[in-house]
């Protein structure tokens, strides 16, 4: 049994790397193919400015996402999730919910397969919904784009994290107090930081871990 599990995990890393790097190359081929097909090359000045405007920030966020989300999603879930994207607003909460539902813990063999299945199903459903949406874009645009519905879709993250917060915080109330208070105080006092909020995920995680460690040592967390 032991060797079985080991070989599954090794296989996941092997296939995960192959898939991921191949998909990375395929993704770069799209803009390259457009350049060749239309014989139109990027404007050097605009390209440099654009890359400088977004790369430092998004590469930092990307690095943080890898470090934070890989232990949650597991190996298979990560190799898939970092290709199919929409992690914070979809894949990660989706996986946490699935793990919670069946009582599997991340980092265990069960958590690993549940994480992978959850990310895979979520990716397939997302891809299909967007595909159908693109096919039906003409009739759908006036509905989804209507000013009446705009306030609803503007608030998708608060609507998601409110319910998810209740589901998770209820189970870990003691661990949650320190990071929640510090993050709310931080963003209320320095609102400009909220725009780059993902950067603060590791900060909040470190606060949570430090506070949990202290409580664990004191014997408050049984």
């Amino acid at each position: 049994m032991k060797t079985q599990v080991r070989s599954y995990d090794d296989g996941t890393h092997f296939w995960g790397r192959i898939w991921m790097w191949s998909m990375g190359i395929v993704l770069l081929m799209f803009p390259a193919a457009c350049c060749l097909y239309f014989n139109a090359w990027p404007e050097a000045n605009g390209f440099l400015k654009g890359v400088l405007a977004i790369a430092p920030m998004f590469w930092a966020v990307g690095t943080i996402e890898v470090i934070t989300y890989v232990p949650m999603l597991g190996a298979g879930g990560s190799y898939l999730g970092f290709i199919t994207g929409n992690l914070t607003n979809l894949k990660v909460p989706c996986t946490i919910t699935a793990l919670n539902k069946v009582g599997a813990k991340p980092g265990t063999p069960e958590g690993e397969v549940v994480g992978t299945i959850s990310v895979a199903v979520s990716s397939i459903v997302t891809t299909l919904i967007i595909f159908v949406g693109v096919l039906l874009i003409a009739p759908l645009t006036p509905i989804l784009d209507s000013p009446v519905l705009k306030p609803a879709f503007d608030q998708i993250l608060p609507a998601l994290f409110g319910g998810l917060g209740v589901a998770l915080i209820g189970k870990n109330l003691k661990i949650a107090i320190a990071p929640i208070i510090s993050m709310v105080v931080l963003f209320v006092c320095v609102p400009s930081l909220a725009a780059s909020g993902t950067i603060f995920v590791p900060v909040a995680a470190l606060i949570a871990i430090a506070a949990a460690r202290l409580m664990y040592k004191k014997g408050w967390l049984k």
Partner: protein
Amino acid sequence: MSHEFNVNSPFMFVAVGIIIVLVLAQSVFFLVRAWRQALQLGIDKEKLKSVVKSSAVFTVVPAISILIGVIALSKKLGLPLPWLRLSVIGALTYETAAAEAAANALGTSIGDASSLLTASQFTTIAWVMTLGIMAGVILTPLISKKLLSGVDKLEKRDKRWGEILMSALFMGMISAFLGMIFGKVGEGLTGWIPVFVMLASMVIMLICAVLIKKLKAKWLEDYALPISMIGAMALAIPITNAVNAYIA
């Protein structure tokens, strides 16, 4: 010899279609592997089905919001590029910002539908958007194995602390996002709208939790989160209107 450029060129639709089929293939590949492994581990089939159902139900609403992102970007960029970017790696929050930054660098804007993009402006934006999201693709294969074996070792040394550590990681993530919801309360009542919506979502979730407990409505478990999400989003409409009416 070059082809005439159009942001909705059939060539791009075909190229994007091929890439999306490849991504679907990757998802199916990992799904089948994990499913077989789960059965080998002796995990109950019903449990696995419930994971599939929970994940599928959860995904619908966020996926529709992603579709709205595609529609918003398609006015300037055409359909194929936003379709690709938001189906593969892209994230709603990221792609809009990246496209806007690239458009600004070219002296135009995503919201400006009055002028058409030239082919070279388009390829510039496509390159910037693609290169911007490569961090995860490059890093994940490099560090996942080490990262996971580190977590594994830690859990072996002190199982209980390992569990607490994972919970703390979750709580850290949730806290950062909950904190961000309060980021605009300094702007007055409008800034409180996200907070009200979050509270609405929390209340609906608590009601669901009570119903699940009291009525033993197990079926509700799968739908509790989507219900609180849709409910809070629906309430966001009257909340926003009420706040705007109050201010005006």
